[in-house]
């Protein structure tokens, strides 16, 4: 799918498949096109090109049928201020057409929500809880979640993670758009990274790490060897007897060099999702250049 707003391209040739029962993490900075993708999937916006299907149903031509099997949590929660929490859950449950009342009550307890208050009296976090409960209580086959934990405190975020694990156990599919890397890392089977409307990376975390670099830190007792010409080693930095470098591909050539030296300590680790994510936004991660003029 592609989506253009005038001369601005919000989404460019997105090709994405989420399989049944998986939790798919959808990552990208602000304005990358995550919400646009979700609005196109929900039929709230029309694609400029391409099409999407949910459970084999075309999102644009058969939205009502497709929506019977999905539940959605919006990133920005605007509800009807004069309704109470209970009235909102009643309305959205009736509109959805299916509610698990026992699970709804359990969720209200788990998220510690007072449904007797009017929506206008809720804090941002409580409004977020309300739409989360409204979505989860339907036990829909597909959960489309657009930054669902924004405004939630750490305890409630844990409760949310618990709910997603439950959903996964019930073989529900989850499309999770989020900024919170730890959340995506903990919950998602696969991850897609969006940049300026294009999907630049997609796969399991294992696959993405495999394709990515490994961070290696070696401490030497003797002379520090020159690692700059070792195949696969990227930008080694020596500080005294400690050398840090990135390794892309096989680590074997580096190990051969290290084995010939007197290595006292060797640390290696895979990149975190955050590092993988930032790798796609290199210029953002670079430190600011010091100004030449004195302040």
């Amino acid at each position, binding site marked *: 799918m592609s989506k253009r707003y005038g001369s601005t391209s919000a989404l460019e040739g997105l090709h994405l498949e989420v399989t049944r029962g998986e939790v798919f993490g959808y990552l990208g900075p602000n304005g990358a096109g995550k919400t646009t993708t979700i609005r196109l999937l929900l039929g709230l916006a029309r694609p400029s090109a391409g099409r999407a299907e949910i459970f084999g149903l075309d999102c644009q031509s058969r939205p009502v049928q497709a929506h019977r099997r*999905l539940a959605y949590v919006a990133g920005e929660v605007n509800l*009807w201020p004069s309704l109470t929490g209970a*009235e909102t859950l009643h309305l959205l449950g009736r509109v959805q057409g299916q509610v698990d009342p026992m699970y709804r009550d359990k969720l209200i307890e788990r998220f510690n929500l007072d449904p007797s208050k009017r929506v206008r009296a809720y804090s941002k976090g409580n409004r977020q809880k309300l739409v989360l409960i409204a979505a989860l209580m339907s036990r829909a086959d597909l959960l489309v979640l657009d930054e669902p934990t924004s405004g939630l405190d750490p305890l409630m975020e844990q409760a949310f993670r618990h709910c997603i694990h439950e959903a996964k156990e019930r073989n529900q599919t989850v499309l999770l758009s989020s900024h919170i890397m730890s959340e995506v890392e903990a919950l998602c089977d696969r991850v897609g990274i969006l940049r300026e409307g294009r999907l630049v990376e997609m796969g399991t975390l294992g696959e993405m790490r495999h394709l990515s670099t490994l961070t290696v830190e070696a401490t030497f007792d003797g002379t520090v060897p020159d690692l700059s010409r070792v195949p696969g080693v990227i930008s080694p930095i020596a500080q005294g007897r400690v050398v840090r470098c990135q390794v892309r591909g096989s680590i074997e050539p580096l190990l051969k060099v290290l084995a010939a030296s007197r290595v006292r300590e060797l640390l290696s680790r895979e990149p975190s999702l955050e590092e993988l994510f930032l790798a796609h936004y290199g210029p953002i991660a670079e430190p600011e250049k010091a100004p030449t003029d004195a302040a």
Partner: protein
Amino acid sequence: MLPNPVALVPARAGRSPGTVIARLTARKAMRSGLLWGYIFGVVVGSSAISYATIYKTQAERNQLEAAFGSNNATGALFGPGSQLQTVAGFTVYKSFMTLIILGAVWGLLTSTRLLRGEEDSGRWELLVSGRATRRSATAQALLGLAAGGATLWAITALITAVSGRYSKIDIATGPALFFAVALVASAIMFLAVGAFTSQLAATRRQASAYAAVVLGISYATRMVADSGIGLHRLIWVSPLGWVEELQPLTAPQPLPLIPIVAFTVVISAVAVLLAGRRDLGASILPDRPAHTSRVLSPSGPLGLTVRLVRSTVIGWAVAIAASALLLGLVTKGASGAISGSSLKQVFTKLGSPGVGVDAYLGVAFLMVAVLIAFVANGQIIAARAEESGGRLDHLFARPVSRSQWFSGRLLVTAAALLGCGVIAGLFTWLGAASQHAGVRFTSVMSAGLNIVPPAVCILGIGALVLGVWPRATSIATYGVLGWSLLTEIIGGIGSVNHWVLDTSVFHQMSAAPAVAPSVSADAGLVAIGVASALIGGIAFNRRDLASE
């Protein structure tokens, strides 16, 4: 070495950051004041010109004075008539009470929009998280609102003074400027009242409702004072009464400016004081306790629409019932004044030929038709607000089709319009019958139903704009209504090309009960409305949902 911290640059040289809120509020209030000042000026100017054009002879003018000058019923409604044999006296009689009420409504709505409305939206929180405290922010906003009031006065004064120089009107500049002061005095007072109720209420709607209650009591008190039953002293406990006592153009009295200024200053000061005594987003008066009833809880898009429009429609129904009752009450007295006067010509131009009760009611229902058209407009704008506020996403992401919501919303509004038409007919008949005006129930009820088709037409046109060009919904719907109204007013005064007149939805309406309702005209208006709504619905189905 640490990089240098980012250098902080003053926002704009010569502008104090301590007045940001005042400037922001002033910009919005002045824009609105500019528009309404123009409307005020045009109404005043057209009233004066129409008098000079219609009542050409002294005999006709004396007849008018005799009919309305000592009429307690019309005095209670529009204020006592004085010097109706002069242009100045008639201009005050024709436009003053209407405009001071309109000014008060403008004041309270502008104030609650720019204070409580900003708070409801969360923007106020951003503003008071800077240098401003809650009190200073409110004080600044009041200054901004005052700038809006000053703009309203300036434009009104300009047009009134320029109109006054026309030889047939001949109103001197000094009295014209004082007339403009009197015209905007209620607006200024209700800007303060709106600021005050914005502190009391939990939402903008509540704040507006509280301020409207103050206005209603003020008007009712003034009505009793002017009804000729020996309670004229009550005029001094009503803010609208103080404005009336200024007696611009006829016998100017600056003394009532004292209570007007004192009231404005005290209410503004209390508003500022209260702003500091409550939490942001909270209200001084406790919010209504939430009640959850499964029976009353909305269970679908239609139920939700009914729930959302309920209080607004009830408010309009009460206003229409009150207006219709008052128009009915004065039927007998007012209809007597039509016979033999040049007013007959105006009524004929407005589509209400003949003399007597039916001719008067024909024009009276035209006024109620305008009110019902406002109901249609308001509902279309409210529908657009559901979309721009992002609330529709929660429905359309569920198994709710856009056409289901769109058609449900329009049908509920159409039913409300029909109800308003019935209420208009019923209460007009009650008022007229209580005065033994000799009107037939069936003809008045059919006249009530006859004013629904123009509103349905406007509703349909609004739906078309909502579907095709959502961001223009408000301006386009008010544009159609304003154009129709203006064309009708000008058409009533002078000669306007019939092609132009035909563009007014009100001109298509028969002036029942003066003439029998035209089934073909009504069907035509409804057909235009339905066809527009259908096209709007198709467009709405095919476009992206659009935020603000």
